[in-house]
């Protein structure tokens, strides 16, 4: 399931790290948002980025599929990011293909104003897939993987905008995995959802991590504790601590991390 897309922009390697971030520094104009960040995102694991607002966690997330390229005045001032061993800033890298390999789910669900079916099929059609049965099969597989199929199978051609918030977010996940990415980036994916819808998305992440590598930015530390294998804590553009999630939340090494997760600052 976790094959590269037909014409992958990045070549697979045997490393256990799906993404390697090496000494990365990043600036918004004159303001340095990330300072010398180094970490590996392990394949088939969930890595959580936590930290107070403005700490750089979302900026780092958006660096991984070069979403920050869209913001004028931003630049990587140092370091590199390798996705399956390939430097994503190399001139030969096709950014569109990179974003297919490194998919993204946003804070607010953003289904297209089209049918449920077409939302999931969109990425496949963009990729050039014309075979209707392949598209139909992939849509079904993706909706099943996103635990949404049973809820929508009888209304696939109705507007996606008629779904509940939680269903819309799972639809966005189905849309993301339909093109079989290597990595799925999630920026506060549950912040607009109620606890039941949140639990469904978390269960989905837990099931899908066997096929994909997840990175989740969250302000909800309980969510990070529940759903991630490793957690990185950021503060003022620096990565203060990166460790197994159980370790971070039971016995962090760094005092700053302890103060943040116990609610003593932030």
């Amino acid at each position: 399931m976790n094959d590269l897309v037909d014409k992958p922009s990045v070549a697979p390697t045997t490393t256990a790290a799906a993404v390697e971030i090496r000494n990365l520094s990043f600036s918004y104009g004159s303001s340095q948002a990330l300072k010398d960040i180094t970490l590996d995102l392990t394949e088939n694991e969930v890595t959580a980025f936590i930290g107070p607002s403005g700490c750089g966690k979302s900026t780092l997330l958006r660096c991984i599929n070069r979403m920050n390229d869209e913001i004028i005045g931003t630049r990587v001032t140092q370091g590199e990011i390798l996705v399956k061993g390939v430097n994503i800033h190399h001139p030969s890298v096709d950014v569109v293909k990179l974003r297919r390999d490194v998919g993204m789910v946003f804070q607010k669900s953003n289904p297209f104003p089209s049918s449920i079916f077409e939302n999931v099929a969109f990425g496949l059609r963009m990729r050039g897939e014309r075979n209707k049965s392949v598209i139909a099969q992939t849509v079904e597989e993706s909706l099943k993987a996103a635990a949404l199929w049973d809820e929508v199978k009888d209304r696939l051609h109705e507007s996606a905008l008629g779904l509940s918030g939680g269903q819309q977010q799972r639809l966005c996940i189905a849309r993301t995995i339909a093109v079989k990415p290597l990595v799925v980036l999630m920026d506060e994916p549950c912040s607009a959802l109620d606890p039941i819808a949140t639990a469904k998305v978390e269960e989905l992440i837990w099931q899908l991590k066997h096929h994909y590598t997840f990175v989740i930015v969250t302000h909800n530390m309980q969510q990070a504790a529940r759903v991630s294998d490793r957690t990185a804590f950021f503060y003022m553009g620096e990565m203060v601590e990166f460790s197994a999630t159980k370790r971070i939340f039971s016995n962090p090494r760094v005092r700053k991390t302890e103060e943040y997760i116990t609610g003593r600052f932030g």
Partner: protein
Amino acid sequence: MQNSHIFREIDNSMVSLKDNVLLMASLTRLNLERAIHSLLTRDVDLARVVIGDDTEVDELELKIDHLGMDILVRFHPVATDLRLVITSMKMACNLERISDHAVNIAKRAKKIGKSTEMVEASVIEPLYSMAEKLLRDALLAYTDANSDLGESLKSADAGLDKAHKEVIALLSSRLENSDGRAENLLHLIFIARSLERIGDLAVNIGEDSVFLSEARVIRHDRKASGPGGN
């Protein structure tokens, strides 16, 4: 049976915790049974086995602590889930102490087994039967979340306390004319004491089972409800 959690990893962790508590409970009961058997049959080798197997119970206590803390850290359980974690961790502590008493019994059984036969050893058997039943019922109260059974253990333990006092009185009276058997009689007195303590620990498990099923605190003769209760 309660519904599953939407996030199923919580169920997996809870089942693992409970399974390990049940495993620890069965090993503890087995250790106690073998310790008494070694005393009554003068089986020194069996006593040695009990002493050696306590390590496994100790390891399980550490594992249950680890699993419980892991659930607290990761899932921030509430309500029944929270009470199950707290009760399971306390139960592991009580079971470990019960297994330690089984080891104490086995150590004394080993010493008695190496010396002349003690007819007085037979007075231990009824105490063991009472303590074992208390322990069995306590474990049942936990597994079935049976608060009535859990609450009943205190009065049942009163019977064990009474029998313990009678045994101590009997063994003490024999001490006066012990003819060199004083040391073994003292061993029996301490074995009786261990069984009485096992009854107390079983009562603790029963009280915790009431808290598990109803969030009601009955320790220290409390009649009020537990935190958040009426």
